[in-house]
């Protein structure tokens, strides 16, 4: 009996530890991954950035996708980020690590403007 209990206890201990690790681990994994896991999208369609103002938490990666038949760019007015020329269906991503307001525009069609607000 004693022997068996000890064996069960011996078997149970790693299981419990594993379970504890699992429970302890999952919130910590979520917490540490939150910045890179948060994504947001801006669609370029009909010469418009949509949504024109995008509000996201710090750490969000924003991806612009050009859905037009004409190339566009997404370039920060203050030099924070700068895409290459995006032809049809091409994408550009940037991760915002600091809070602030980031106005940007298409350098080819400067009437096209947008803002990413990072909180």
């Amino acid at each position, binding site marked *: 009996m004693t022997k068996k209990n000890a064996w069960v206890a011996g078997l149970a201990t790693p299981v419990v530890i594993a379970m504890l690790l699992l429970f302890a681990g999952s919130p910590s994994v979520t917490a540490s991954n939150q910045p890179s896991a948060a994504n947001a999208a801006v669609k370029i369609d009909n*010469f*418009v950035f949509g949504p024109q103002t995008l509000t996201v938490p710090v750490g969000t990666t924003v991806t612009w996708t050009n859905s037009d*038949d*004409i190339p566009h760019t997404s370039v920060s007015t203050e030099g924070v980020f700068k895409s290459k*020329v995006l032809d049809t269906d091409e994408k550009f991503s940037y991760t915002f690590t600091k809070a602030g307001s980031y106005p940007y525009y298409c350098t*080819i*069609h*400067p*009437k096209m*403007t947008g803002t990413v607000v990072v909180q």
Partner: protein
Amino acid sequence: MPDKKQDLIDQKLQDLNNDGVDRRGFLKCMAWAGTGLVWTLSGGIPVSRAFAKDYGKNAGKGADFSFVQISDSHIGFNKPANPDVTATLQTAINKINAMPQSPDFIIHTGDLSQLSKPSEFDTLDQVLKGASAKQIFFVPGEHDMLSDNGAQYLERYGKGTKGTGWYSFDHKGVHFVGLVNVANLKAGGMGSLGQEQLEWFEDDLKGRSASTPIVLFAHIPLWTIYPEWGWGTDDSEQALSYVKRFGSVTVLNGHIHQIMQKIEGKVSFHTAMSTAFPQPAPGTAPSAGPMKVPAEQLQQVLGITDVNYVVSGRSLAIVDSPLGA
């Protein structure tokens, strides 16, 4: 008919010389833009379908000459609006080569390429090599200055030019100025010439007689056609103030892939068709993107512009021709 083009030119010159305004043409196709400017639509512009066989007989009179404007070739574009832009550029060149009186030169008002790729410029060069007119003058469109701030454009097409590619030259008594309004564009703005170029332009015109005909050419229109789509140049008014004293000023632009025309005092503004694909009339579509038309109609909305200068006339006569004619 053989005299159709000559008749058209004569009539245009007569209209222009009466009072500087082609009122008949204007009334026929007048439209008010939201901005309060008057502009005319392509449907109202006379179109010459037959290039007169005997037009050349007038070539010997004085310094008469003609040149052709082509625009917006967008070599590399391959979307449904025109999957073969190289073929339509070739058609445009064939049309120029078939003219009975060879033009003295060709002006390309920009967007030679779609993405400023070396291969696209190579293809363009290959097609243009077949033109009967050996001299071709260029100004860049925004598509020609992608990625490298126009370094490659300048290397290929802008040797000996100033700044981002502006320059002037004289031909048989007419002063031509190629301006660049697609560089260093500001967020929220339209086309822009910039202070350095404006100063150069003012200086370039200094000392020239007011009777010298002036031809300005640039990619984006130098008059505000539709600001919502960026179809205008923010500082064009300053540039145009420098040409006010001249008796004949012709402004040739591209960018909007359709014909529009405005006459303001002594200044005639004109935009050319594209050789690649049409764009919608201002405000008639959600955006200025390529307009898809049935394949059999494509050649009617692409074309070239033939500009004729007759010494006896005060103005230049402009004849637009669709490719499919």
